[in-house]
């Protein structure tokens, strides 16, 4: 077997450039031009298309009038992760698809970039934009420091509660820190955003605390007035084909996480030929980053056609323009050794690679409570079957976008507040 840990042929500078901000921020002049394209619609379709219901025309008007403080407040009031959503939201299937400019001329207002203008401005200011209600004396445990957990924690802190946030990893941020392509969250943005939202006060963090391992729900329930579980999915799906456990076959999420945590991307090993199996955003992120690290060929194998692909058309274009080959209708049947390499055998052909990354979906791998099934079941108020225990984000049923997780956390904070007030 060849060593899959061959270093890239790209220079360190080239790799650093490849992993710089994917969509650099608008400058002041660009922001005004973009903002002035907004029609300030009545009953704006973009607001309805935003899972967190941000007053998009309202904040854009603030940008066009120079009221960036008001713009940022509108965004962050609805979505405390407005900064990361500005970077990672698939706006082309959300607000920007709904934008009336799309219907008018196919070119929506650049809502995502404008949201970044306002949130970047806010994060460059000293202090925190939100105050806290008078202290309630209540404490809540939040398990999981990803977007859902921290959105809930921030909401609870605003309402005057104190929050203890636990996370299994050594750093907060969840998928924002470990699961998203580096160029979407350049310059350590995920960590900066957590620091920004925690600046409201009343939020304490404890790391490397895993539910069901060194963290027990019953214990937490006894010590806190309420518990919010937002532990994400945690597991990955297996291909379920022969050869899956051969060397040099890895989970794409592990590859992405390792890459995100590497301070110097040029030291991340990458072989010449990489295959990514799957068709979601994780597959796109893994394939594109493998290419940007310097792999000669990166091929995505997806079992169905472009219309069925979970990754949006924009994501597919992004990967292709960076040199990723996407093969549709390619369902792997088995993986075999092929000399020093691996052969992925599909119905319609065999693809050879030095490294195979699996990205065929994630699954809930939670533990620690017997009411946990496929995912955690909650009612409309985010309450689980256990009184005082709430849950939201990817560990509950629903759409697995960051923005949905944030909305879950926001609404769960209100539900928990109502519960605590009895």
């Amino acid at each position, binding site marked *: 077997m060849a060593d899959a840990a061959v270093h890239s042929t790209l220079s360190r500078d080239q790799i650093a450039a490849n992993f710089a901000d994917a969509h650099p921020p608008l400058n002041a002049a660009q922001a*005004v*031009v973009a*903002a*002035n394209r907004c*029609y*300030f*619609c*009545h*009953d*704006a*379709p973009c607001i309805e298309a935003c899972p967190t219901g941000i007053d998009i025309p309202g904040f854009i008007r603030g940008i*066009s009038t120079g009221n960036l403080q008001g713009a940022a407040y509108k965004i962050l009031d609805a979505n405390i992760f407005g900064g990361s959503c500005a970077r990672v939201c698939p706006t082309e299937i959300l607000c920007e698809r709904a934008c*009336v*400019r799309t*219907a*008018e001329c196919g070119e929506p207002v650049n809502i995502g970039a404008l949201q970044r203008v306002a949130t970047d401005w806010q994060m460059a200011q000293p202090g925190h934009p939100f105050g806290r209600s008078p202290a309630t004396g209540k404490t809540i445990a939040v398990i999981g420091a990803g977007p859902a957990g921290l959105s809930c924690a921030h909401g609870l802190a605003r309402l005057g509660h104190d929050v203890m946030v636990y996370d299994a990893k050594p750093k907060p941020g969840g998928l924002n820190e470990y699961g998203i392509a580096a160029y979407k969250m350049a310059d350590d943005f995920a960590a900066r955003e957590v620091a920004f939202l925690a600046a409201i006060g009343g939020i304490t963090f404890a790391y490397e605390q895993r539910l069901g391992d060194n963290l027990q729900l019953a214990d937490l329930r006894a010590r806190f007035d309420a518990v919010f579980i937002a532990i994400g999915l945690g597991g990955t799906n297996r291909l379920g084909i022969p050869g899956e456990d051969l060397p040099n076959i890895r989970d794409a999420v592990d590859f992405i996480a390792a890459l995100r945590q590497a301070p110097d991307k040029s030291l991340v090993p990458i072989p010449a030929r990489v295959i990514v199996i799957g068709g979601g955003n994780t597959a796109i992120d893994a394939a594109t980053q493998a290419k940007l690290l310097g792999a000669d060929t990166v091929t995505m194998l997806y079992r169905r056609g472009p219309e069925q692909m979970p990754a949006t058309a924009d994501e597919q274009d992004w990967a292709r323009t960076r040199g990723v080959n996407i093969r549709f209708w390619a369902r792997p049947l088995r993986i075999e050794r092929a000399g020093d390499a691996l052969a992925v055998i599909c119905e319609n052909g065999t693809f050879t690679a030095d490294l195979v990354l699996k990205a065929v979906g994630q699954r809930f791998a939670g533990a620690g409570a017997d009411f946990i099934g496929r995912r955690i079941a909650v009612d409309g108020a985010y309450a689980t079957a256990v009184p005082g225990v709430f849950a939201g984000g990817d560990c509950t049923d629903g759409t697995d976008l960051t923005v949905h997780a944030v909305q879950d956390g926001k609404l769960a904070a209100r539900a928990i507040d109502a519960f605590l007030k009895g």
Partner: protein
Amino acid sequence: MADLSTSFAGIKSPNPFWLASAPPTDKAYNVERAFRAGWGGVVWKTLGDDPPVVNVSSRYGAVAYGGTRIAGFNNIELITDRPLAVNLREITEVKRKWPDRAMVVSLMVPCDEASWRHILGLVEGTGADGVELNFGCPHGMSERGMGAAVGQVPDYVEMVTRWCKQHSRLPVIVKLTPNVTDIVKAAAAAKSGGADAVSLINTITSITSVDLDLMAPAPTVDGKGTHGGYCGPAVKPIALRMVAEIARDEFMRGTPISGIGGIATWRDAAEFIALGAGNVQVCTAAMHHGFRIVDDMIGGLANWMDGKGYASIRDFQGAAIPNFVHWDDLNLNYKSIARIDPSLCIQCGKCYAACEDTSHQAIAALRENGARRYEVIEAECVGCNLCAHVCPVDGCITMAGVATGLPHATWKDHPNNPSSPHFKHG
């Protein structure tokens, strides 16, 4: 190809586009660049007595709107600050080099006959085609008894115009200030004094903006500001009205009008000409974009005229004047209502917000299977036209005439009008 040449008060020009008396026409260098770009004529920046005035730094304020710069423009610059002899020499040289272009010289001297007689003689020696009397500038010079201080008093306008006609053989164009309640009075005074033509509007007294950090009106000069003269696209409607008011006046009939105020395109020019102007003068648009804008002005106007079958400027000059009537002459029984073309509608809802919040609640915001639909409630629509203006899509909302079966009727005959013969009490 349409013939764009004009003869304005006897001054010939290959096209109706002149540069107004302003910074762009202060020197031979600029004027020659303008002529090379194709401008039909210039009104040289206002000359005054020596010693010349002194100008300040900075000099301009501007209104940006919706990301568009210089929607409105304001200046606190005075007349030329160069010695009179330098300007006269350059005017002579440029006119000699460009004999086919109109060379008009703007003048402003103290309100005494000797001053005017003196400078008119000097200008005549340059070979210039005419003079324009600057009775308009609202800042700096008016405080010294010149500019708008003259233009605001019809008796002075008439008196100075008469002096000029007595002491010069050149055509005299009187430039009028809009900073009056009745522009026709000033125009009539100019005509009574013997003016060959009027030009309007000069700039409007204004403060463009306030610097909220310095707490001073812009533009600021060492922390202080002063009122200036407003111009640019924003003033065009004011200028059009004043031109039209003079053009339809009985007494003024036949007096050539040079249209000035916010003209930036051939279409703007065509509108001024349709309301009676014999030519137009441009300043702000050239200061914003440079002299080469005249190329599209010439080409656009000629193409439009060709399309309409107008062979010369005269063919449509004043064509809109008969339709510029007093409110009392409008047909009260004419009715139009808004129509929304659903195939063009992009669901922005601006028509609904405008009508619901600020007009007559005549648009319904509907949801059909989640999709937005905006529909005119015809019984409530008064045909005000607001929705069509706020709609961002050309042609989506149109105003359709509706047959009422009622005869043409004006306020003059309306029973609600106390001065109507059909007035009905209570």
